[in-house]
């Protein structure tokens, strides 16, 4: 029995009522949670502007850059299409259809991933589930939040599309409200599908929901790629090809599909037919409301069951077995000394056991490989040396930018993530500089594998002459060295030890600085490659090793190696001084 008794002088908590009445009126819980979100966003923005103004400026500048680039790209596309009037009449609605079809897939996928994390793995869900709030109120707010999180960037992408359409295709004032309405009402349809998928996958595959979602997406992308490959088949004559193309494209223009409604609505709005556009707007709005109602009702009704299943899922090991990874690591890092090879093997295990890392890399580089292997089907006049050089340059640009994103997102946090093991690393009979170098060489091996493979396929499919091929290969290797050096070096110089979430480490101030440095490095390297390519295209002969080519390649190599060495040196110095 207790030997603690109440102290006579200690104030007692007065009892006013036993328990309390939770917010029971319809919508009270939703209002409460929306007010909570408002307070969280307000405090977050206040902190952001106070502590990290550079981060805010960097994000806004990058957004404006993307926004402007997309606007001009769309203007250019519409101009090109409009040059052939007859084809333009048919092609522009088709562009809308494909754009919104792609948007449906991307939104459904990102909603599924965000919904899964938000509903089943955020501590907030457990907290609210143990509270007297009705699960329906929580699901509604989380649904709205997921829509906002998954689609804000796409909404921003929608604005340049709207401006470009208005600029090039005309349309009266009714176009703007119609476009915005169609775009915004469309978003909940794939959003509802995404949340339903997250819930359904958790109910059916509670042990491996993320992997199922990722593999399903990969399969969907492969099927889409195959379909696109057959769609672009140039083997027939022009008229046969056109007939074949429209036959196959009619598959995605089915009148029962939401992306067809929004594409048709926008086509009518462009033509000034506000009544017809309004009809599609109402169709989309009605379907969006119905889809939202259904998904919220189903998920709320069986939320506790799904949550229980998700909580019981943490027992299965993710990724391939350890000995397979050990074998791959032995192969990949055979050139490293034993202890550094062990560190690289650990990082490789983390890479393979985090589906987010390997699937994102597989999807991005898979799509790129699919594109470059089909580049001859898509560009029919590749024998022209100028076009050949241009396409090769565009491929290098795409690979470099993806590598910059990948290294900033996944390589930069590598050193920060060692915060829990720092004491162990400190005890290792290995100088700290070598730990950083092991991480650099690990990242370099992975990025080289991906980058060099895609560029090699591109070179082979474009049948580039040897000298130009060698120049491109050397440049991509140099860019990999530069990017890995920047990410690891800055990750060691400005580590974020209080954070365990790699996405938050990458999204913080130092992660943003690293991303900006990587982008600047890539842009400068690509400007040099662009000048080199321009000279080669002017001469019209990629086979000759010109002075411009030599200087260009030497410049890119020097720049990237110097930047990499400087960043790594700064990082190693700082890491040596760190206390365990």
């Amino acid at each position: 029995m207790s030997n603690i008794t109440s102290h006579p002088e200690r104030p007692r908590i007065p009892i006013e009522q036993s328990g309390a009445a939770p917010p029971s009126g319809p919508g009270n819980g939703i209002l409460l949670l929306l007010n909570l979100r408002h307070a969280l966003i307000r405090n977050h923005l206040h902190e952001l502007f106070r502590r990290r103004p550079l981060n805010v400026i960097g994000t806004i500048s990058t957004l404006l850059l993307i926004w402007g680039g997309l606007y001009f790209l769309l203007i250019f596309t519409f101009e090109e299409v409009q040059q052939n009037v007859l084809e333009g009449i048919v092609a522009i609605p088709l562009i809308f259809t494909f754009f919104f079809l792609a948007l449906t897939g991307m939104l459904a996928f990102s909603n599924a991933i965000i919904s899964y994390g938000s509903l089943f793995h955020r501590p907030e869900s457990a907290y609210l589930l143990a509270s007297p709030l009705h699960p329906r109120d929580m699901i509604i707010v989380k649904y709205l939040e997921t829509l906002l999180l998954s689609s804000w960037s796409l909404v921003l992408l929608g604005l340049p599309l709207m401006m470009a359409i208005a600029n090039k295709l005309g349309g009266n004032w009714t176009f703007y409200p119609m476009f915005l309405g169609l775009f915004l009402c469309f978003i909940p349809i794939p959003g509802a599908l995404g949340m339903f998928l997250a819930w359904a996958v958790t109910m059916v595959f509670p042990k491996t929901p993320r992997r199922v979602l990722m593999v399903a997406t990969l399969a969907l992308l492969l099927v889409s790629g195959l379909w696109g490959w057959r769609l672009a088949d140039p083997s027939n004559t022009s008229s046969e090809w056109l007939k074949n193309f429209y036959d196959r494209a009619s598959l995605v223009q089915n009148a029962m599909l939401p992306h067809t409604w929004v594409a048709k609505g926008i086509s009518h709005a462009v033509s000034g037919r506000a009544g017809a556009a309004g009809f599609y707007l109402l169709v989309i709005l009605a379907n969006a409301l119905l889809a939202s109602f259904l998904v919220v009702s189903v998920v709320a009704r069986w939320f506790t069951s799904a949550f229980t299943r998700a909580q019981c899922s943490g027992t299965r090991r993710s990724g391939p077995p350890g000995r397979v990874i050990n074998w791959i690591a032995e192969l990949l890092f055979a050139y490293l000394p034993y202890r550094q090879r062990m560190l690289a093997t650990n990082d490789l295990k983390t890479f393979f056991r985090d589906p987010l890392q390997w699937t994102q890399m597989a999807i991005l580089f898979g799509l790129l490989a699919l594109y470059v292997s089909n580049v001859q089907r898509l560009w029919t006049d590749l024998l022209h040396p100028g076009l050949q050089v241009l396409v090769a340059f565009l491929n290098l640009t795409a690979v470099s930018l993806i590598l910059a994103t990948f290294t900033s997102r996944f390589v930069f946090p590598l050193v920060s993530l060692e915060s829990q093991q720092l004491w162990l690393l400190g005890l290792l009979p290995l100088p700290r500089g070598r730990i950083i170098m092991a991480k650099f060489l690990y990242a370099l091996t992975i990025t080289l594998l991906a980058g060099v493979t895609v560029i090699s396929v591109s070179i082979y499919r474009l049948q580039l002459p040897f000298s130009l091929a060698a120049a491109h290969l050397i440049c991509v290797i140099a860019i990999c060295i530069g990017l890995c050096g920047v990410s690891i070096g800055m990750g060691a110089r400005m580590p974020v030890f209080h954070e365990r979430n790699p996405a938050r480490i990458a999204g913080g101030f130092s992660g943003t600085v690293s991303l900006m440095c990587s982008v600047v490095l890539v842009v400068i390297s690509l400007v040099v490659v662009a000048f080199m390519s321009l000279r080669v295209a002017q001469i019209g002969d990629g086979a000759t090793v010109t002075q411009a080519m030599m200087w260009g390649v030497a410049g890119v190599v020097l720049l990237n190696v110097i930047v990499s060495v400087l960043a790594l040196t700064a990082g190693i110095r700082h890491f040596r001084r760190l206390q365990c």
Partner: protein
Amino acid sequence: MTPAIELHEVTKRFGDFTAVDRLRLTIPPGELFAFLGPNGAGKTTTIKMLVGLLLPDGGSVRVCGHAMGRDGQLAKSQLAYVPDQPFLYDKLTGHEFLDFVGRMYGLSRASQEQRTKQLVEMLEMGSFLHQLTESYSHGMKQRTVLAAALLHDPAVLVTDEPMVGLDPRTVRKVKDILRDMVHDGKTVFMSTHTLEVAEAVADRIGIINHGRLIAVGTLEELRHQASRSETLEDIFLSLTAEGQAEASETVPQ
């Protein structure tokens, strides 16, 4: 009298593994019940079913007479739960968090302010209440979560390792608060590994091992059951060692 907590034949399985096996437990109002067990014995799973975070595969859970499944909202309005890992919104201040919790439980503005003031004084939270919770130490977080749990004056407080990470002064305060609650007719269900705390504050003690409640009663009753007149630590080790031996006999090697 309606029991504060009633677990009837509660079972939870994770695949082939039975985490909680036909658990029967009734706790009346005005009792501090300490729930003990080795790691992986089923303590946290039981608590999660008790507060509605996990659905049992069999049996039923009732809080103040309300079934957790059917009348979940009513049962949860009588409960407060303090998990071992305190949850707070990083971008809220402690005061904003308490305000949110008060409104979630439907407290009036006046009574919420009064309760907040008293709890802040009692748990000595005044110095950090208006800072964002992301800057709090573990102890500050524990105190804030405890204040939030007590804000609506729950009939049942369920707490998982309430003393971990707290300094001795705060540990003493928390012990006092828990005893005061019990004195006022409330029920406290406390899971802990700290046997001294259980020995000091608990009215009854339950020991779970391999998902089964192997002993329940006052300290005296447990001494009698274990045929030992020693500390709770000795009794615990004696009872769980027997369970361990039984389990190792049944588990195929």
